[in-house]
């Protein structure tokens, strides 16, 4: 069979026939987000020599980790996780981290700016800006340099804060680790340009298009383990300047302050001294999600660091904060 009747006009290959094809259900909103994030993870693994995934133990990191598992299944996650430990994290976070990372067989690097801690860096002594600068930003940049990483994946979302809303999925950082928001690479369709010169790196945000609600719905749907601090429980707290702070860890009571027990939970996890709890009875995922619908205030409001002054998140990000 070599003789084709339409030899002379072989432009006419048989057209694609639609008969007998099953109809494919449209992807739901969450499935679309999941597919996009997986695509981003695979791009990262395919285009960089030494990527690393920042793991901060919070709910977004939990989702990020699950998506990484999905992206490379049945293989392992082809890069290590990096936790920048400020030394002021909630003990339950560290406990959760060590147990969960072991359970899924991922590789974990923990980096601390020990020098700064030894020199007595605390938010009380330095103020939150400076403390964060040393224990998070500096520490992260050091860790990236030490590890020789050229890409760092993180769980930041555009809906968290308005300077984040401006960030690309692939966010270019110069050799000093800095972000130049006025000069970001165009990012059309789903083409991510990860080309680098020596010393430069890219921050990659696979959860860019997820909202806080999407994250919770996904955690519920996928049954993803999260740190118990997200669930309401009676805990010992002190109320200070409108914030509810847990008394565990390095929070000295000020004169006149009294610890009390209240049903509270964390909406977002950071360092003990700088992350407030919210009064809540939501002790299950559906209750948390239901509670979200009643929220009138943003999730980062309980983080002191984000609103020291107008534009503070952008300033920190420019310097290299995640």
């Amino acid at each position: 069979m070599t003789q084709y009747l339409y030899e002379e006009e072989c432009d006419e290959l048989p057209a694609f026939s639609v008969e007998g094809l099953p109809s494919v259900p449209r992807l739901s909103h969450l499935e679309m987000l999941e597919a996009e994030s997986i695509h981003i993870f695979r791009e990262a693994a395919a285009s960089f020599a030494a990527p690393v995934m920042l793991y901060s133990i919070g709910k977004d990191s939990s989702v990020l980790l699950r998506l990484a598992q999905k992206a490379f299944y049945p293989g392992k996650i082809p890069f290590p996780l990096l936790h920048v430990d400020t030394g002021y994290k909630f003990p339950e976070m560290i406990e959760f981290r060590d147990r969960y990372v072991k359970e899924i067989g991922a590789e974990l690097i923990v980096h601390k700016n020990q020098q700064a801690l030894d020199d007595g860096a605390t938010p009380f002594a330095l103020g939150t800006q400076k403390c964060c600068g040393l224990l998070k930003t500096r520490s992260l940049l050091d860790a990236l340099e030490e590890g020789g990483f050229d890409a760092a994946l993180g769980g930041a979302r555009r809906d968290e804060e308005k300077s984040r809303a401006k960030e690309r999925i692939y966010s270019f950082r110069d050799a000093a680790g800095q972000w130049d928001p006025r000069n970001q690479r165009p990012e059309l369709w789903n083409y991510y340009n990860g080309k680098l010169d020596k010393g430069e790196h890219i921050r990659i945000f696979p959860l860019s298009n997820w909202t806080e609600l999407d994250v919770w719905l996904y955690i519920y749907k996928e049954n993803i383990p999260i740190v118990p601090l997200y669930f309401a429980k009676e805990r010992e707290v002190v109320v200070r300047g409108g914030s509810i702070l847990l008394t565990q860890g390095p929070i000295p009571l000020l004169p006149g302050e009294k610890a009390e027990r209240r049903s509270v939970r964390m909406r977002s996890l950071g360092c003990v001294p700088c992350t407030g709890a919210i009064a809540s009875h939501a002790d299950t995922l559906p209750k948390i999600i239901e509670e979200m619908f009643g929220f009138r205030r943003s999730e980062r409001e309980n983080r002191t660091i984000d609103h020291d002054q107008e534009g503070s998140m952008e300033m920190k990000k420019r310097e290299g904060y995640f």
Partner: protein
Amino acid sequence: MHPNATGANASTFEQFLSQHLERDLLRFTTAGSVDDGKSTLIGRLLYDSKAIYEDQVQSIRQSALNRSTGPMDFSLLTDGLRAEREQGITIDVAYRYFTTARRKFIIADTPGHEQYTRNMATGASTADAAVVLVDARKGVLPQSRRHATIAALLGIPYIIAAVNKMDLIDYSEEMFRRLEGDLEELALQISPSGAQIIQCIPISALEGENVVTRSTKIPWYAGPSLLEYLEEIPIADASSPEALRFPVQYVIRPDDSFRGFAGQIIAGSVRPGDRVVALPSKQTTRVRSIVTFDGPLPLAGTGSSVTLQLEDELDLSRGDLLVSEAGLPNIARRFAANVVWLHATPLDVKKRWVMRQATDELRVQATKIRSRIDVNTMERPLAPQLGLNDIGIVEFEATRNLSFDLYSQNRNSGSFILIDPLTNATVGAGMISENLDKANRRAERELSDARSEAMFQEDISHAASVAVSERARRSGHHPGAVWLGARQSLAAPLERTLFEAGFHVVVIDDAQNPGEWSEGLVRGLYSAGMIVLYSPKYTREKEKHHLTSAIQPDRILDVDSLNQEVGDAFLLQKIVAWVEGLRIARPEEGR
């Protein structure tokens, strides 16, 4: 703030969850010249639909930087960079997310300033709809035309024109109608790319008129508010059957026993057992399984990120493309594309660029710049090069073959970006419009030889006589007819527009022999696969039915039956959209 809070008991929660997940998603972008009020509009939209948290509203109310004449500057809700707030302009695109009872939205609020056109293109590239703003006092500016053109070239199917700052012209109908005329003209100029301006809405972003709720200050406008429109726009159905396009993104190989090809399906669907062709090697195999973390799948559709295991040990790597055996893409080294240039280093015919297309990466060189759009006149003169923010048609040659579809058929496999190999900057965005290679026919013939006996038999059956469907495959569209009725003035522009858009089209009239039509002629043209435009000068209504009886009812459009209130340009848009519906997916288009 969300209307759908439910009780936390399990079954209602599940109900709420599935309801929430069923809501579809519309991505839209703003466009228009600097200071036309895009950010103010988006801020207003979010604020009025109660999608902003109180602490965010407070911080803006208290902000010292209020450039608006109202109590609060809504643009500060999206202008999130310090430099933006200081200069009072948007520099880079802001992405915002919100949900109404009807659907979910991802908004890209883009900058109007010409210097940041690249950021507008970024925001618009993934949009399903665009809202093009014009300032009621300034009208359509060159930058409005540039943005509308980019939006149309990017394949955004729906464009809403919003005439903003109506408060500053006392909500004058007369001035609005004048602008509407200019916008109709713009609609005509961008229509060859298939985009349509579906509505023109008078709004005031500052005062919230016609943004979320209908305005009471504009009684002469009876249409819906902007949000109502956005809630109504139909979303392209990605699940309609198409040939498979699966660019290999990453090879998963945990050990010797497993080798899977990971990627996102950008068109069509796949099932275990399906025959697929790997490009560029043209090897054929079957899909063994669709592997995911959540278990093997019986079927995966467009948009899914999956991992495919194949029956045969093919040596595929990133950049290769798996496609259905029937429905091959173009395979060529030379192609033409619409290009938006994003960098100060111009595009000229000397330089080599790195091209990313789907997951493939290769070197290309521009061989000819066919034309560049002048956004003042919308003419397309020849040009030696494309500079920053220019839009033009460029011919390229790659160092080897690439597999692609035309952008009009697939936004993913027909698009590409260009990267400067020296600076690593993303310098251009392209939308492939034409396959310039003839030489690839031979290659495809080789592939034909390898096809199965069954397909051979099918081919023979084609030899009997040429069927209407075969003609349609060649021309890319079904035959059809449009009865222009009283709107004969549309005949020439419509014929031109459709012709430019690639249709086989002809106008027939009864001017020579008043009232007499040759039924045989009509039948002949129709069965030759043409789009026939009847421009009846004398024929009366009752003879119409007789004349058009040869034609299937769904293949004829009676313009008399459309709303006659609207202007020529909008009517033309509607007709073009209807004719576009006659297109068929053509695997071999563009040679």
